[in-house]
């Protein structure tokens, strides 16, 4: 009897392991397909990879504080890392979701035997991968060209910040993609991306903005993430990081929840 039970438990465990392995394989293939799909689309790669690098070279290096001011250089890097983190989240999720929705692919995926959560998980994983690539390229440029000094730990923390910090922007992209038409989505996302990054002090210091606008900065996830980035590179206090992380989590949860409701309504 005990042997039978042990045998049954053993086979249950094997079935569970097989299901987990199959799900992991689907997730990897789905994320790989999503990555290739975006990598081959210049309309995605140019604004998400080329633009942050180009702007960093232009404003952060050529017109930047220079090698004589390493602390200012680190702060500029932090701003551009946030810019480079925002774009993959907003665009990878927003544009693909709106397109999938409009062209019937989302419906087909719902009818196909893909475990439902994997659709979103693969998109978020893809955005994380792009954020990792952009942050790696930016930090390499910073160290090699702009003369920013980073310890290995800080460098790793910056990449981690980009990879995890992309999630609230994924949530915003998802919300826009679930509400807007495919053709309108890039425009709406740009209308969020550019003003939000400007109002968060990523382009010019907040002190240069009119006071009412600069006081609104804590509302923007990009400002919250920039505070964490600055804490990693040096100037901002580390003690405030949990509060900023909490604010980002709240924004992500609110946008994911709203997107879920919007997608549920559309059915």
């Amino acid at each position, binding site marked *: 009897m005990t042997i039978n039970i042990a045998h049954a438990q053993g086979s249950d465990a094997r079935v569970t392991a097989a299901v987990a392995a199959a799900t992991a394989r*689907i997730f990897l*293939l*789905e994320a790989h397909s999503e990555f290739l*799909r975006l990598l081959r689309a210049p309309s995605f790669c140019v604004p998400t990879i080329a633009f942050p690098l180009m702007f960093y070279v232009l404003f952060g290096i050529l017109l930047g504080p220079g090698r004589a001011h390493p602390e200012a250089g680190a702060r500029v890097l932090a701003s551009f890392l946030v810019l480079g983190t925002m774009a993959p989240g907003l665009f990878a999720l927003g544009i693909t979701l709106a397109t999938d929705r409009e062209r019937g692919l989302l419906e*087909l995926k*719902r*009818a196909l*035997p*893909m475990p439902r959560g994997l659709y979103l998980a693969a998109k978020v994983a893809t955005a994380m991968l792009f954020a990792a690539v952009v942050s790696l390229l930016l930090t390499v440029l910073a160290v090699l060209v702009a003369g920013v000094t980073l310890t290995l730990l800080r460098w790793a923390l910056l990449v981690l910040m980009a990879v995890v910090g992309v999630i609230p922007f994924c949530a915003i992209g998802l919300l826009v993609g679930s509400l807007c038409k495919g053709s309108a989505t890039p425009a709406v996302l740009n209308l969020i991306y550019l003003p939000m990054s400007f109002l968060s002090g990523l382009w010019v210091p907040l002190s240069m903005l009119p006071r009412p606008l600069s006081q609104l900065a804590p509302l923007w996830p990009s400002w919250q993430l920039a505070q964490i980035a600055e804490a990693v590179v040096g100037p901002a206090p580390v003690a405030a990081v949990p509060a900023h992380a909490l604010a980002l989590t709240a924004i992500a949860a609110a946008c994911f929840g709203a997107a879920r409701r919007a997608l549920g309504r559309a059915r």
Partner: protein
Amino acid sequence: MASQSQETPAAVLSGVSKRYGERLALEQVTLRIVPGQVTALLGPNGAGKTTAISLLLGLVAPQSGEVQVLGGAAGSLAVRRRTGVMLQSAVLPDTLRVGELLRLVGSYYPRPRPLAEVAALAGLSAQLATPYAKLSGGQQRRVQFALAICGNPQLLFLDEPTTGLDVEARESLWRVVRELTGRGCAILLTTHYLEEAEALAQRVAVLVRGRLVSEGTVDEIRTRGVRSRIRCVSTLGVEEIRRWPGVLGAAREECWLDIETSSAEPVVRRLLAADPNLSGLEVRRAGLAEEFARITRKAA
């Protein structure tokens, strides 16, 4: 075991109603899809065919009635793993290659067909490395068909599968459909081409404005009303012919007379007797098209 699976339907809609806001898409529809058979769901645009498929796929829920698929709930993962689907309009990611799409969707299924076999069945062996966007409309439709059959489904939904296909591609799709039903797969087909339903389907269901107005085997439906069509050159009056027994309708087009009849022979005999100068006589067995036109006219 095999005979039992013949009797147990693969999918059933029982007394299902679905409305979208004010618009009633389906009203009290009952439909059975049987293993080893193609069931063709016919009807004019907006009749509710796609809604019926969406209900069976679990994409939408009915307001009343019951939907049962492969002994489980429509749309559950276990049911989806045994189901293949080709939707009427689903544009796949432009930049992915055919082989990548087949591998991805095949990975969703527990026992997928080998990739090379799927590609050969769908006529895509030469296109595996081509990005989806670079394919012709017909080739894209073939990829969608390949995705529908790649998981070895027991139940297959084909929503207008041959729209945009050339004759050769359509016939090879028909061959695969027959092979699948031969192996016991249950297929629900919607189509605008009645000759396609006639060529593939064993059973036909006709929807008009969300109601099921006719259902049966292809032969039953074909022979239900109009059985033959007679065409000839004659001066006989249309009004008089309409009163003859066995005549369901008559019309004149210049010198030509067109007669719809439930039984051709007595009408032909009477025509020849009534008009010795009659010429150009043609008698044609009515197809699904005539009956479909009659049913939808009557219901509309």
